């Protein structure tokens, strides 16, 4: 049951994040949506490794079946990667804000049609 709830929550978060990413015009909001979606995908991965009644996958934590340790190992790497991506994207938002004085996608793209330097 807990596994299923985790899966459903993960998918819901991914959907919510993508919705925010598409609908919001502000770049910071878009990145927040992206972060929520990334968090949802991580929760989804961890929940897929869940086994009913499983204990945490740490050696020496007592008897009984453990949850699948591999998704948790993968998730560690994925979290680092998402963090790096988000940080880099924020750097680009800072650069754009300094130059264009706006974080609105439509205004940024309208100015895109200016002639090339």
């Amino acid at each position: 049951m807990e596994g299923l709830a985790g899966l459903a929550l993960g998918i819901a978060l991914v959907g919510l994040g993508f919705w925010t990413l598409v609908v919001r015009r502000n770049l910071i909001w878009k990145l927040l949506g992206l972060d929520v979606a990334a968090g949802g995908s991580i929760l989804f991965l961890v929940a897929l490794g869940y086994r009913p009644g499983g204990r945490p996958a740490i050696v020496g934590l007592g008897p009984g079946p453990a949850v699948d340790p591999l998704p948790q190992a993968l998730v560690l790497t994925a979290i680092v990667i998402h963090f790096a991506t988000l940080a880099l994207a924020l750097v680009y938002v800072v650069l754009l804000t300094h130059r264009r004085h706006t974080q609105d996608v439509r205004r940024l793209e309208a100015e895109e049609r200016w002639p090339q330097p």
Partner: protein
Amino acid sequence: MAAALSGVLAYLAFGLLGLIGRPRLFSLLALAAGVATFSLWAPGFPEVLVGGLPWGIAVAGDPWTLGMWALGLTLHGAVLLHGRARKEEFHPLITLLIGTCLAGALSRDLFNLFVLMDLSSLLATILVVWERRERAVWAAFRYLVLTEVGLILYLMGLGLVYARTGTLSITALAQLGLGFSEPILAVGAGLLVAGTAVKTGVFLLGLWLPPAHDQAPTEVSAVLSGLVVKVGVVALARLSEAFPLGPILVILGALTGFGGIAYALWEKDIKIFLAHHTASQLGYMLLGLGLGMELGALLYAVAHGFFKGLLFLAAGSGVVQTGKREIKELAGRLSWPVAVGLGVGTWAIAGLPPLAGFAAKGFLSQGAPFWAKAVFSGLGIGTAASFSKLIPLLRPIGTGPVGGLAVLVAGVMGLGLGAFFFVPELREPRAVAEAALVAGVGYALHWPLRRWPLRFPELGLDRSLVSLLFGTLGIVILALFLR
């Protein structure tokens, strides 16, 4: 195996050392180490689990790895030579990017591929904004956001496949032979393909590609289009070993081929034009993979790396030297080396004998069913028609720096002539006549097409995201339908 891994390690280590100091020296050392290790493992090696059972990372030196290494090392040499005046961290970052791509070609593990694809996107966007131009920053932002969305989808697909099969190794998945037997697997494989297609820059899914390849500095455009995009193609080739992806890849290939050509046909800016053609040439590779002609797809990927790298280097140098970007305005202003580079590249991409494009297209159309040959001819005619625009540029004046153009001209000619002389099927008059006919029809068509230009909608960030999500939905539904 040890040689290949130490080559990757040398690339990453020298790249990091170059960030501290002596950037060009360490990049040169990385290239030397790469060539040395490549010559050590060159005939290839069978699959090995690094780290042992049960969770080691599978690496193998198969033809795809060989091709990507040859392409990556040649491109690195050309870029080092061409951008030798570039300072600071430019060359170390290029070294790291190429090292990542070399590692990606070795890997046969779904998660490892995910990490390397994401790392290559991160490094690539840093290089795209290298000259700190506003438009380049915007292009890099789009690139980063779209590939991140694609890789979130990839991660979910990977989770589903792992939950069902308990393995992440391509070989183990292929041996299980489950295919799309269960809905979970079909959805998982669909998400994996969609994520990789976004990273590859397939039309309608990876619409980050045209602005990013257009705005990047000259050498970076060449590496992005020549090598980084190919990591995604390698990943798709690996995935098609594990899952029956044939129809999906054929549909994606036709879509990206004709979509890219439609946008390129009436494009006036030379770098955007070349960027749309990267998407269109991906069509050949995906169609080849989808039809099960792995060798043809591989040869096309390598040939495309050479001639598109050459075209981007030449066009970028021309744009930098003249300060103009419109094809019409560039005519009669280019220097000799740039014009020769553009000429050889155009000759090759149009598929005329005996250069690399002819050999690659010949390999693909051999053994293809009739309808696939018709699709290939259609793509060839479209490519030739849109590249006819570049013919007025071949009136050079004066001389200029040659740089890395010579390396890639040699690559295009070497690959093409080698295949032409060693494969007798390519020398048959019929193959030569077909290639000439396709290029001729394309050239003839470009006159009427130029008279009646079509306008396609501009593809901003939001539209690209929506088309990405709908494209993914389409792929997943198709995978479920194919079950």
